[in-house]
């Protein structure tokens, strides 16, 4: 499984880094957020628990807002809005 980053529709992006371990999910999330416009929403899917801690602290630092955090069968699905 390789990482997937795509635009799903206007203003919405999907980053799937399932299967990736540290530090990949947080680096990809940072880079994906750098590539989208303010107001756009990035959906990140990952299954490495420790990356979640880093991603949420990163968003707190940058001001990007985590709109939703879901957990499905050991995977985390987070929606992040870029500020």
């Amino acid at each position, binding site marked *: *499984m*390789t*990482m*997937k*980053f*795509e635009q799903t529709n206007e203003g919405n992006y999907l980053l799937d880094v399932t*299967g*990736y*371990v*540290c*530090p*990949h999910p*947080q*680096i*990809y*999330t*940072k*880079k*994906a957020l*750098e*590539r989208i416009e303010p107001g756009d929403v990035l959906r990140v899917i990952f*299954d*490495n*628990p*420790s990356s*979640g*801690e*880093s991603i949420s*602290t*990163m968003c*707190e*630092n*940058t*001001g990007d807002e985590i709109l939703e955090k879901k*957990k499905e*069968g*050991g*995977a985390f699905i987070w929606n992040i809005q870029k500020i």
Partner: protein
Amino acid sequence: MEMLASERKNRVWAFIILGFFALVSVATFAYNEYYIYLSIYLWFGLIYGLALQYGRFCFSSAFRDLFAVGVARMAVGITIAIALFALVASLVTAQGLSTFHPAPSGIHAVIAGFIFGMGMVFAGGCASGSLYKTGEGNMNALIVVFSISVSQALFVDIGGWTNKLVPESWHHSALAKGLPASINVGDGWMDQYLAGYVWNHPVTTFAKMLGWENSSALGAIVGNFLIGVILPSALLLGVVYFVWSRKAFVRKMLKQGKEKMTLLDEVKGYWAMLSASKRTAIAGLIIGVAAGLHMLVLQGARVKFGVKNAGALLERMGFDYGISVNGTVFDPGYWYVTTQEAQWVGWMLQKTTGANYMDNVFFGYVNGIPNPAINPADWMSLATIGGAAIMALLYSEFKFKKPTLELATWAIIGGTLMGIGARLALGCNIGAFFIRVANGDPSGWLFGIGMVPGAYVAVRFFNWWTERKMEKQGFGL
């Protein structure tokens, strides 16, 4: 409903694992009371596993996430753990009950830290991190554990052409140590590095450098704890605050209508950084206190059984295979990760290939290669994996993850670098950094100083790598 059923199943599995360890402890104790010594390692290992998983406590991310994504949570968490461990350790030391022995301080610790630091970022986790992530069902982390184990066992026994790389002075110095003939110290790179180079370096602590005894209250508490740990930690966290964390706090204050940061605001900002990740801070607290108590409880067991090392106990129990020429086996008396990983591979290689792995300093003179089933430190590592699995199951975070080719490649490269770094430093992020720093040993800081640029180099590489992959998906910057 389906969710609930899976949660129930997870919980059952968590209790099965816990029950297994309890059964091992009780049954072995009933068979022979000396097994309680191994069980002490087991239960502290389990606590480390529980806390590591709960706090997502990964030493590699302390530096890595600072450089890669500007996140300071782990740098803070580790400092909390070190400070608390140092506090408990200094009290234990002041009572003369410490099991800690400082390591030789020298530039080799910095170089080893650099190699290890690079390795832990490549691997996606440090030595202790790979253990707890294995417990989460992460098979990539298991590859890292195997790579650390195999690379160490091969590296400590390396001979042949590598002898040509040994400086003459190391060779003579190693021979002059007068080690038993069975060790063959004049042959092998690592043997001559250890006996002819590392052992010639000073072994000291902050207390000793200030002219105090380690076991005196002044030396243990003022020298090792306050000057050796608290002062440099507070300074380091100050740097982390001003370079990484302050910006976000200032922005928040501006949003709230503040125009200027007062000193009180700075203190609030510093505190906000310390308390940003509760999970990490709580894990740091538990690990710090447990690591200190581990030393105390084990010293108590040594006094009770009248031994200084588990080798004597194993011999009393009738196990004499793989015990070092000094009658010892690896029995640090505190938390440690890598040496026992090298040992089980050394034991397996000697058993299967018939080659002699006991003619080197690392195995033959110091640590031995006892059967992993009765190796105290291996009990600790297995319980760490088990503890992490229990916590992950209870929080529904356990997931069996197959490695991909890409990640397995990084895991093998990273694990091998960590294995080499750990042996050059005589320990990993736990043994060579966490334990030594907290016990006032300057060589711990030297290893840490090396880990920082090592992690930085690997982060730069991954930055380039991820940019490249983003471009491939049509999202170049």
